[in-house]
């Protein structure tokens, strides 16, 4: 305590490993380009010039091996479900999932009579943030990323024994 105090001024930052890891992970989330349906167009519009996502550190990667977040945007069908599971398993830890739109949350407008629609992507993979809307506005998608940031900041790298 007495050694560092007052000697090095603003050049020393004292923090915890958790905070550094969480800060760097949350500020640079790289999603996988996983547009399925209409919400994908809103996702593209969010990453375009008006509601820029690049300023939040979000940079879309085509391959699951290089991404942190899976942004399930659109309806999940039974034929696609196995592929989603496989893509999720191919992503490296730490990984998060954002379910965008009401189709991915719970089946959307096809909840009652859609025989080929999976009623919510959380029947297949664990989801962190849900965004309601059909399709959600770009502001809602940005809000979801901010919520995910706050969630990541609450994590810890200490393993439970």
């Amino acid at each position, binding site marked *: 305590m007495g050694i560092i105090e007052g000697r090095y001024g603003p050049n020393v930052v004292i923090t915890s490993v958790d905070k550094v890891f969480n800060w760097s992970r949350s500020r640079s989330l790289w999603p*996988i*380009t*996983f*547009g*399925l*349906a*209409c919400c*994908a*167009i*809103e996702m*593209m*519009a969010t990453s*375009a*010039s*008006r509601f820029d996502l690049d300023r939040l550190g979000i940079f879309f990667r*085509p391959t699951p091996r290089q991404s942190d977040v899976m942004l399930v945007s*659109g*309806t999940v*069908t039974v*034929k*696609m479900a196995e*592929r989603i599971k496989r*893509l999720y398993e191919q992503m490296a830890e730490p990984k998060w999932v954002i379910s965008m739109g009401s189709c991915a949350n719970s089946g959307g*407008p*096809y909840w*009652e*009579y*859609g*025989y*080929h*629609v999976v009623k919510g992507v959380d029947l297949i993979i664990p989801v962190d943030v849900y965004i309601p809307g*059909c*399709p959600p*506005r770009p502001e809602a998608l940005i809000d979801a990323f901010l919520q995910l940031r706050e969630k990541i900041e609450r994590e810890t790298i200490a393993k439970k024994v």
Partner: protein
Amino acid sequence: MSIKDIDLPVGLTPEKWYEAVDAIESVHGEKMVLQMGPQHPATHGVLRLELETDGELIVKATPHIGYLHRCFEKVCENMTWPQVVPYTDRLDYCASMNNNFGYVLGAEKLFNIEVSERVQTIRVLVAEMNRVASHLVAVGTYGLDIGAWTPFLFLFQAREHLLDLFDELCGGRLLYNYIWIGGLSHDLPDGWLKKVREFIPYFAPKIPELNSLLSYNKIFIERLANVGVIPADLAIRYGVTGPNLRGAGVAWDLRKAEPYSGYETYEFDIPVGKGEVGTVGDCFDRYMVRVNEMVQSIRIIEQALDRLEKMEKDDVQAAIPKTFAKVPVGELYFRTEATKGELGFYMISDGKQKPYRLKCRAPSFCSLSVMKEVSPGLLIADMVALIGSLDVVLGEVDR
């Protein structure tokens, strides 16, 4: 025997390459089966292409669809006639006004409902605005597939202005549920027509800018010329319609051939592919047809605005029937010119509140079926150019 011993003809194109290589027995390797899988940045949705390739050349490409099959037809059998309209939105989600339009016009013909001229003009106006928005997505993402980031950002910025106008009109940016059977869901807000009027001079210089940035760019032309040629007779045999057919040189547009909702009173041209930089019917022609269609749509929008500014306000919901509990019996196939081609609805009514059968004939479904004929002889990079030029939206293909 090696490649050096053969006389390669001058001007060897990829299509001829395969024939030349075929002649050399020892060069043939194993055929590789590649999955251009359902998750791919350049397949415009969840489309799976099974490619059998000999090195980089594609020998056979089989499209597999159904990864977005959302049971539209079964759902609509359980919804009342007006409740089907939001589901038609989600068919071709880039241009949902046109889908609503097609379904509603068919239903109105089946039930003998007439709407006022003002409602017809507003419908034409919003349908053409949505056509511009959809072509902006198609052209912007096409540039993105080929590798050009800048036109994508510029065009989406222009599209945002259009989406703001739609937002003010009916509350939705992408999916509107605006055109109802017998009328519209909302009347025009005050001052909206003036804002649309202001959009036109904002958008007019964007097309020459796009042409100078992307269309006549040497790299773009090299990637697109003579690639994926769909000649006119092949297109007709496979049921390809819309800009894909017009790119092959056939001047067929349902807005001129079987006009609906007052289209016969508007002045506009039909852009047709001319083989500017390569063969007629190649990817560049289809792309240029879309760019020129945007210009023609702006012409229609101007004419519609001129008429609307002079019309008196009336009730846009006047012709909506009070109840759909008992409707006329009949069956009908009605088709309109949506952004991707001929959108047809075969509807069967048995007099009840819900449709007995509603089949949607999607333009992208037929455009995609031609792929197996056109793809042999292409390189894998050309496949990306071909898919982008066909402008498929998987929501329509799989319904």
